[in-house]
């Protein structure tokens, strides 16, 4: 090993001191490294965009989930021909913020699509998601019937089923469902939202709905789940239509554990996570944890 010259030694010392004294980036990095991010973040506040940003920050930033060059699918719920105020589709600002954060984190491309139950053109427009996501820089597309492939999902209710190829080909999936009432599944949140990534005769899944939902969650394994509870639909879901069933919670819940996020959704809705059959099945199958008492939950509030 060669000796350091005095000049080099001085340079090194100065650089080190400079780095140590520079307050902000080092300290956040250090704190992020020591205190590992929480299991679940609940973010409250008036602005859907700001609380989404705050939730991601509390989770350790989008760069924890999205790497440079990734192709990311941000999967909202655009299932119905309804306006954001009717709370049947994901809040467009939440979707747009996620798109923006992904791109800032270095994603090569962010895709946004869903396989709606009603006319896709109307659903994309009326939900406000197409416009907001496009503006944020996402590639918004309609589902192309040719791109479904029969795949083995290795599930309990779902074996061979048609899956949308693009959803399997992306590097990361960020699931951003809305929290709302659903008669068959009681609530529809993250795991149920994945039904928008498959084709086939989806109505027949309702005969084994709870198992099918868990099969989908186990198959797609989204990287991150951001549950929109800005406005929730408390009854007559999944499409509602009347504002009298809409309640403003001004909240977003986020985490990497899909069962935990959905369990939190149930709690926000006023139900016990254990009331939901599909949550029960999912946690028994080891897909995640629904016991909120044992999770590290961080609550943040953003006022603007």
């Amino acid at each position, binding site marked *: 090993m060669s000796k350091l010259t005095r000049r080099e030694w001085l340079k090194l010392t100065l650089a080190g001191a400079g780095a140590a004294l520079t307050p902000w980036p080092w300290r956040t990095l250090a704190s992020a490294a020591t205190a590992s991010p929480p299991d679940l973040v609940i973010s409250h506040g008036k602005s859907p965009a700001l609380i989404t940003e705050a939730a991601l920050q509390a989770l350790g930033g989008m760069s924890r989930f999205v790497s440079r060059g990734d192709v990311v699918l941000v999967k909202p719920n655009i299932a119905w021909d309804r306006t954001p105020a009717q709370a049947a589709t994901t809040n467009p600002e939440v979707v747009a913020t996620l798109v923006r954060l992904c791109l800032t984190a270095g994603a090569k491309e962010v895709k946004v699509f869903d396989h709606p139950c009603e006319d896709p*053109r109307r659903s*994309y427009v009326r939900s406000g998601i197409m416009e907001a996501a496009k503006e944020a820089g996402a590639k918004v597309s309609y589902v192309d019937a040719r791109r479904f492939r029969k795949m083995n999902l290795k599930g309990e209710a779902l074996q061979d089923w048609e899956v949308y190829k693009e959803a399997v080909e992306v590097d990361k999936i960020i699931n951003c469902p809305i929290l709302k009432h659903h008669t068959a599944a009681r609530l529809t949140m993250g795991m149920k939202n994945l039904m928008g990534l498959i084709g086939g005769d989806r109505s027949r899944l309702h005969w084994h709905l709870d198992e099918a939902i868990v099969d989908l969650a186990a198959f797609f394994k989204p990287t991150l789940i951001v549950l929109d509870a800005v406005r929730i639909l408390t009854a007559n879901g999944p499409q509602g239509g009347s504002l009298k069933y809409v309640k403003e919670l001004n909240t977003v819940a986020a985490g990497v554990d899909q069962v935990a996020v959905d369990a939190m959704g149930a709690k926000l809705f006023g139900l016990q996570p254990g009331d939901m059959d599909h949550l029960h099945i999912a946690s028994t199958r080891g897909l995640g944890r629904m016991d909120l008492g044992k999770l590290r939950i961080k609550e943040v509030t953003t006022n603007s």
Partner: protein
Amino acid sequence: MTAYKGTDEIAYPIRIFLHFDPLILITTFLSSHGIPLALLLSLITVSFTLVFGRVFCGWVCPLGTLNDFMGRLTPKKRRKKHLGDQARRVKYYILIFVLVSSLFTLQITGLADPISLLIRSLAVAVEPAVNLMTHTVFDLLYRADIPVVTAISEAIYALLKKHILAFHQPFFYQGIFIGLIFAAILLANLYRRRFWCTALCPLGALLGLITQISPFKRVVGKGCTSCNLCVRECRTGAAADVKGKWKKSECVMCGECQEDCPEDAVRFGFLPAKAGKVTGVDWGRRGVIASFISGIFVVPLMRTNPLTKRRKGSLIRPPGALPEAEFLRRCVRCGECMKVCLTNGLQPALFEAGLEGIWTPRFDFHSGYCQYYCTLCGQVCPTGALRELSQEEKARTKIGLAYIDKNRCIPYAQGVECLVCEEHCPTPDKAIKFEQVETRTPGGRKLIRRPVVDLKLCIGCGICEYKCPLHDQPAIICTRLGESRADELLPF
């Protein structure tokens, strides 16, 4: 054709042609005693015809343009031949027939009106077929996944998909039937050029009659050598040399004879009554009387059908449809409503509404349903047979009611929960509700939820029938009972 982008209003220029169609104006007025204001635009067509002759046929009518295009393929030896006078009379008989029958409230003009016929044929037959063909070709290339070729074909496909191809492949029951008639009309050009326009078109006949008093004339001057070039080349057989008579009511004012004449002897212009030799309308008294009488008798003949007395439950009309009798007096079967229907649920009727209602729109919940907030069909209807509804009105309008077939419905018949109909029900308070009951199954007693229809809330949109997982024969079915326009007394 404008592609629909998902907004509430549609920018739809196609019906504009119908608004310029005076035959639709007159027959709609005769049969329904009402005048949709937009149809008054056709008075422009009438005034142009009064002054310049059948310019509409030669320069505006899209079917005429298509016929001219096909006429280029007419074999040489047949190009010089023209239809005889007998055949030319048929169009007047058709005109008289539809005018008289519409006077007696039967509106079947749309079957032969060229604009309705063309729009219908394009919407129900040509577009679906072309769309399917294009899809099949690009699908094949997509599946083959040939390195460079597929990349190019996919780029073209994306472009076509964005601007030309339909969003969903359309399917129509009468596609082949309507398509064959359209093909026959086009192929008739190979026998005689503009066969449809000279022999059959009732609008052409109407404009031909109007043009009789027009001061615009064709005159053949002294330079004529009777070379007969103009006579041979005339697409409708209207031209004549200096000795012959010009068939004014047959001339579509294309101006070709003037251009072709080697002696520059042909002239068009405003000329005194005596100038030029002109034949009047030759329609034969017997034929006129026969078509007049058949126009009268076709009305009761068509209506002595049990369906006139009582409609079948399965005949569900689009929202905004006028009461059935009035609706039939206005609908010209142009097929625009079927074309714009987002779910492909509107289909042309065959005999479901009697022969009188052939090709009128009906809902078929096997092929689609009525989208809750969509009001497109009322927006495009040219005659007001379908009223334009606001979204609030639309949400209140019942087109029928849903019934559960308990022998098939899964929760009733199998004791297994299903709930798909409830999930899709678009009414904000859910017209499909649940009752929780204890059922006995081979595995023991258990609690399940079964769907029940709340007839007060149901609007009959048919999404439950369409989405029912029992596709072969849905366990929930909509019928026309309870439709708002019928204003019937109901048990609830």
